[in-house]
């Protein structure tokens, strides 16, 4: 019973945080562009509107199951990331999983996307997926290298243990292993589809990218999973580098600070081309990652 209530609470928390964060993002973006922008609830309204629209088109069963796979991926990711430390609540099934499982779950989304869009046969959708998978090639390596660095530093794959090791500001991953945070930050922005690396949806360039064929309810599902997935990733980085959170307010504060950092980066930089993005990932974050591995393995006293 506790597990069921806890899981539902986690899903609800990630959803609410998701649409409020994105609503804030849209408002902040508007203010930067010297306009008023929508209300902070705008993403919630958009999402609900899509859920109550009709969905008349079909492209075979895979077109329907693709969003469901992505949604299931988002739900499981949320459930395997512990939201709080030293608490019975908002844990989900995180004691049964570890960082390696979460790494696998993060790839479920793009995979489901590719399946669904491939069956729709829309050239813009396929183009979007191709760009997405190309970018994935660039961002996965430094991202996972960064996560591996964290595992190496704490010599465990358990997110709980990593959180427990960071008691106090001086022991935050951000302070003890800043280079791993730098390695992760840019691929993290890319995996959130933030601006310099938003080659997948690429507004104007490939219309709506992979989502070009989705409208109505399936788009609502995709939007929901996107918001929840973003929160899951934010919370994961908070757990790994900012010492986790002991209560929900601290969690929101820390996740919001991180979100603000990525948002500011994406608001300032315009979109890169796909090959530029991949080149960049293979050069800067990956180079930094290799350097960090050398430092962590050969000079353990330096990073620990």
């Amino acid at each position: 019973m506790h597990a069921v209530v806890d899981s539902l609470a986690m899903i609800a928390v990630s959803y609410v945080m998701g649409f409020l964060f994105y609503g804030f993002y849209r408002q902040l973006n508007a203010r930067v562009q010297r306009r008023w922008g929508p209300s902070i609830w705008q993403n919630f309204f958009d999402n609900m509107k899509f859920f109550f629209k009709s969905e008349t088109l079909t492209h075979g069963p895979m077109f329907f199951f693709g969003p469901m796979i992505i949604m299931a991926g988002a739900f499981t990711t949320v459930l395997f990331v512990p939201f709080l430390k030293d608490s019975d609540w908002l844990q989900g099934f995180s004691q049964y999983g570890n960082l390696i499982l979460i790494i696998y779950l993060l790839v479920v989304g793009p995979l489901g996307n590719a399946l669904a869009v491939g069956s729709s046969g829309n050239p813009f959708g396929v183009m979007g997926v191709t760009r997405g998978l190309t970018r994935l090639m660039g961002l996965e390596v430094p991202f996972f290298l960064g996560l591996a660095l964290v595992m190496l530093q704490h010599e465990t794959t358990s997110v709980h243990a990593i959180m427990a090791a960071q008691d106090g500001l001086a022991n935050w991953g951000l302070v003890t292993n800043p280079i791993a945070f730098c390695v992760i930050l840019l691929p993290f922005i890319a995996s959130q589809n933030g601006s310099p690396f938003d080659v997948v949806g690429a507004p104007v360039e490939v219309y709506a990218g992979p989502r070009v064929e989705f409208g109505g309810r399936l788009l609502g599902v995709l939007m929901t999973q996107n918001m929840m997935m973003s929160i899951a990733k934010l919370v994961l980085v908070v757990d790994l580098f900012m010492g986790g959170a002991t209560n929900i307010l601290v969690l929101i504060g820390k996740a919001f600070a991180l979100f603000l950092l990525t948002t500011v980066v994406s608001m300032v930089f315009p979109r890169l081309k796909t090959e530029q993005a991949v080149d960049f990932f293979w050069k800067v974050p990956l180079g930094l990652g290799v350097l960090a591995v050398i430092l962590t393995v050969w000079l353990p006293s330096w990073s620990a």
Partner: protein
Amino acid sequence: MYHKTQCEGFQCEQAMLEVPDGVEAVREGVLDRLIAWMRQKSLFVLAYGTGCGAIEMRPLMTSRFDAERFGVIGAATPRQADVLIISGYLALKTLRRVIRSYEQMQEPKYVIALGSCTINGGMYWDSYNTVKQVDRYIPVDIYINGCMPRPEALIEGFVALQARIKNGEKGGYHHYRENIDWYKANQRKVLGDQVPPAYTYDWYHAGDVA
């Protein structure tokens, strides 16, 4: 809104335009009203400029007039759009594309006709290949007159449309579905065998739309 059983001819149609028909509400319950309230807060506009009026939509969407305040933002594809703006005159060639785009949109969907050209042909009143009354081919929810209307007028139109959605009034798409044969006959009259193929609209006949 024209109806096949009602009168034909320009004078008669003008008279019908001036007399608003009774407001038909379809939404009743609390939940429906809540959904309608959220729906009017979020209108995605299909970014498809059919005529010169589209030039007024750029300042509307960008910082100067900022339509995003009203939840109005552009959508890239008809699948994701709620509002189709007929921005100015429609050539016969464009009409075909507009009909196709309109039928691809998911319900509920609304049409805003912009400029005098959509109402009576405007300065193209005697042109051989321009549609004079858009309402005969696709159902129009809101007309915004002027040549061309300013972005303020467009915002006014959006606010009026939002009020109609909030009140749960029957949208144009209901009329399209109920009078599909009349609309299709009109379209066939001007487009001939260029009319979009039957599979684009035969699900209207299937009755219960998902």
